[in-house]
């Protein structure tokens, strides 16, 4: 953390900054050291002497890339050496009163991941990691997380804590399944279902907005209770109505994949990003729109001002309650839309509590992504990757218990809010009702 002295140069001489010193943060090097040590202990206690093969293209790809095979012990210990070096470098940076830049953290993470994957594959029954499948699966697990995270980013940025992402996703999944089933047809059903999902998300958000903005009920309480309400409602209707009439009400036509010409043939990332369904393409657009919207448009400026300092926003003529109300609703629409992915994109039918905590991982992504749409998307991708890595590892028969991979997003988030990963500072007014005369 540097002292904010550069701006003070503009002030008149009497308004110079106070004398200052530098507050050192040892969190990064300490975290690095702990992770490096943990990996080293893991590699030492369970030695895997085999080779690890990384497959870089799938069988039906136009462009084939040869597989890469790495020697287990050599790679892992080289990585450990690199990680140690980075840790030392980070410590040196802090000692020199400098911050540890983000790219160092990213490089650290990538090297750590390579080490871990190599180690895991080297000890597996089939020491081959199919990267295309791993990545594509990760993306599809991430889709609802990303929608949920964008919902969380918008509503927290406008000052309303949204614990009800889970409920909004679930409402979207339920509604889209029913609407798409009733309408049927190859294209019309799913598309109308998507819009219906968005509307159902808005309805849940309305309740959140009404209770927290109009009645000043604690936003966390409303969120928690809303989740229970939506779970109860959808489960009740599922058992009572959907299950007996599954053919009519719960067999939606699934969205078809639309490969984008040329782009979908790019090795590795082509199949991952450009052989997807409509929801995923819509997601790309929404991510970009939310990012540009938040930081480069009037809408975003006002939204953020309301979340940071509602009184100030009020004094320049921004209607705080209305801004919060509509943006929480918009956020609900995004989450509801994303919820449709469960039924129309992935599973193909609604099931009780099928979101299974995705809303909470999305919430984790919001925090880990520091309330920034791009970072939150990346966090959601990381979490999706972690759960799919678990799938892949259990398929190739790796010795790591899958539960520990599944835990990763949650543990990482706890570390993040505890301040071990980056600086976590949310919108200043999030969670606080705005009461005016």
């Amino acid at each position: 953390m540097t002292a904010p002295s550069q701006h003070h140069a503009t002030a008149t001489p009497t308004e110079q900054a106070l004398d200052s010193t530098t507050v050192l943060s040892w969190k990064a090097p300490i975290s690095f050291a702990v992770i490096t040590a943990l990996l080293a202990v893991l590699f030492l206690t369970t030695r895997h002497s085999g080779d690890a093969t990384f497959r870089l293209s799938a069988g039906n790809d136009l462009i084939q890339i040869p597989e890469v095979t790495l020697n287990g012990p050599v790679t892992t210990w080289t990585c450990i050496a690199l990680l140690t070096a980075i840790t030392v470098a980070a410590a040196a940076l802090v000692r020199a009163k400098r911050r540890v830049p983000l790219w160092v953290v990213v490089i650290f993470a990538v090297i750590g991941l390579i080490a871990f994957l190599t180690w895991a594959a080297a000890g597996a029954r089939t020491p081959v990691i199919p990267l295309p499948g791993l990545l594509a699966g990760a993306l599809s697990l991430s889709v609802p997380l990303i929608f949920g995270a964008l919902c969380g980013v918008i509503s927290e940025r406008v000052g309303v804590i949204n614990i009800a992402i889970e409920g909004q996703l679930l409402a979207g999944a339920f509604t889209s399944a029913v609407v798409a089933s009733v309408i049927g047809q190859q294209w019309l059903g799913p598309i109308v279902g998507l819009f219906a999902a968005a509307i159902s998300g808005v309805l849940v958000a309305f309740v959140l907005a009404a209770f927290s903005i109009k009645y000043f009920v604690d936003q966390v309480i409303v969120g928690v209770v809303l989740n229970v309400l939506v779970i109860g409602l959808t489960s009740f209707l599922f058992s009572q109505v959907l299950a007996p009439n599954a053919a009519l009400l719960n067999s939606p036509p699934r969205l078809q994949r639309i490969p984008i010409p040329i782009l979908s043939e790019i090795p590795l990332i082509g199949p991952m990003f450009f052989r997807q369904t409509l929801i995923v393409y819509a997601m790309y657009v929404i991510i970009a729109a939310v990012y540009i919207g938040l930081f480069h448009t009037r809408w975003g400026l006002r939204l953020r001002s309301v979340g940071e300092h509602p009184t100030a926003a009020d004094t320049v003529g921004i209607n705080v309650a209305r801004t919060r109300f509509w943006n929480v609703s918009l956020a609900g629409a995004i989450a509801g839309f994303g919820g449709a992915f469960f039924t129309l994109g992935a599973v193909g039918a609604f099931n009780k509590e099928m979101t299974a905590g995705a809303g909470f991982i999305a919430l984790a992504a919001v925090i880990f992504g520091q309330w920034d749409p791009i970072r939150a998307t990346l966090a959601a991708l990381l979490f999706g990757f972690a759960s799919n890595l678990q799938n892949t590892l259990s398929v190739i028969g790796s010795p790591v218990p899958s539960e520990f991979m599944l835990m990763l997003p949650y543990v990482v988030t706890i570390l993040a809010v505890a301040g071990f990963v980056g600086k976590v500072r949310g919108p200043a007014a999030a969670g606080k009702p705005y009461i005016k005369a």
Partner: protein
Amino acid sequence: MKLELRGITKKFGSLVANDHIDLTVEAGEIHCLLGENGAGKSTLMNVLYGLYRADEGEILLDDQLQHFEGPGDAMRAGIGMVHQHFMLIPVFTVAENVMLGHEQTRTAGLLDLAAARAKVREISDRFGFDVDPDALVDDLPVGVQQRVEIIKALSRDARVLVFDEPTAVLTPQETDELMAIMRQLKETGASIVFITHKLREVREVADRITVVRLGKVVGEAEPTATNAELASLMVGRAVELTVQKEEPDLGEEALQVEHLTVVDPVGQLVVNDVSFSVRRGEVLAVAGVQGNGQTELTEALVGLQSRVQGTVRLDGQDLTRNSVRRILDAGVGFVPEDRTEDGLVGEFSVAENLMLDRADGEPFVKAGNVQRGFLAEFAKEKVAEFDVRTPGIDTKAGRLSGGNQQKVVLARELSRDLNLLVAAQPTRGVDVGSIEFIHKRIIETRDAGVPVVVVSTELDEVTALADRIMVMYRGKVVGIVPGDTPREVLGLMMAGERPAASGDAPTPEGAAA
């Protein structure tokens, strides 16, 4: 632009904050709205600015009747306001703050930041401000933030500008600069409403003066009116704040503070190498403009600050970096600056608040149980002794008036065996009757041989109570001077100028005699 308010009435429940207030401000004049704290000045301006809806009355601009649904309408009508607490988004840049609410956009609805920057620069140049449009507001000093507020108002072509207690956070020098800006604005034909309770400022810039008391207009005055006239209008009776006190009976040095430094979370030295000492039976008053490290100094004394260097000794015992609990147990009484935030639990009863800082031991707690009978007796006794006006000891403290809340805090702190009393802004927001009572109790404490540190931003409180005065500026001690030091000297010291007479580096002992 001419502004006219007719018969504005604003009630909060049974409280009438504004009672049929009439006010006319001509174009190109600086009109002072003078009144004590709580007289209803800010409420009136918030009505004018559309933040509150008046229960009765009309607002006219250039004789046109106005209907403001919110601040947006008021701004469109040409009203701008520089708020007492700046209405700036700390994490936005200056340009973003200035454009917020009336943003210009480019193609595809993207924000036109370049235009906003140009606007900031243009207005800055016009008034000789030096404000970087891309600086984060959070990083700017208070004086500059106020200029951003002014730019914000001007960028909307405000023709009526309201300054709500703008000098509260400024040094005398910055205040002078602000006065100059106001005159400059007046030259351009804007009408200016200047809200204050400081007579000196009023007489310096005002063209006309309206005095408000208890929500009513009690009179108009010309700037040529004498202080005495204005003052009696404002308070309604002569104010006598000198406290009867004897010469101090000084004992040995009890509190010794050496090289105390407090670092805030971003690394600024908010208290910078402060050394002083206080003797038994002496009041040391810490003077200074708000926000020059006094708050942090008192917090450091009672262990509420975490990043502290230097030493604090009380009767030879080292208290540095001890927990609050240990420091209180060493006999330190503390009256915090903000009683509703730090001094009381508003939802607790008066009785519970009276045992708040002795919640884990005798006499209030035995074997883990709160001694409710003892507490009730104790509370009744203290309520009587300190003249706390409350329906009963079970009334929630948050429902008492400011003065009575402060008496509860004082009763709690003075009911312990003290070796040091630290009182920060002991009479802020307290009615006149309670002020006298509180001052009397502080002097009694001193006369009982307890060293007392009083922090106050009010010079008269400082001079009324102090045996010695320590002036702080930007975290440092400017000097420690005798209690009868003239106001002009103190004023200069509060602006950071060392007193010429007492040498360039006054020692803690330097001015004790």
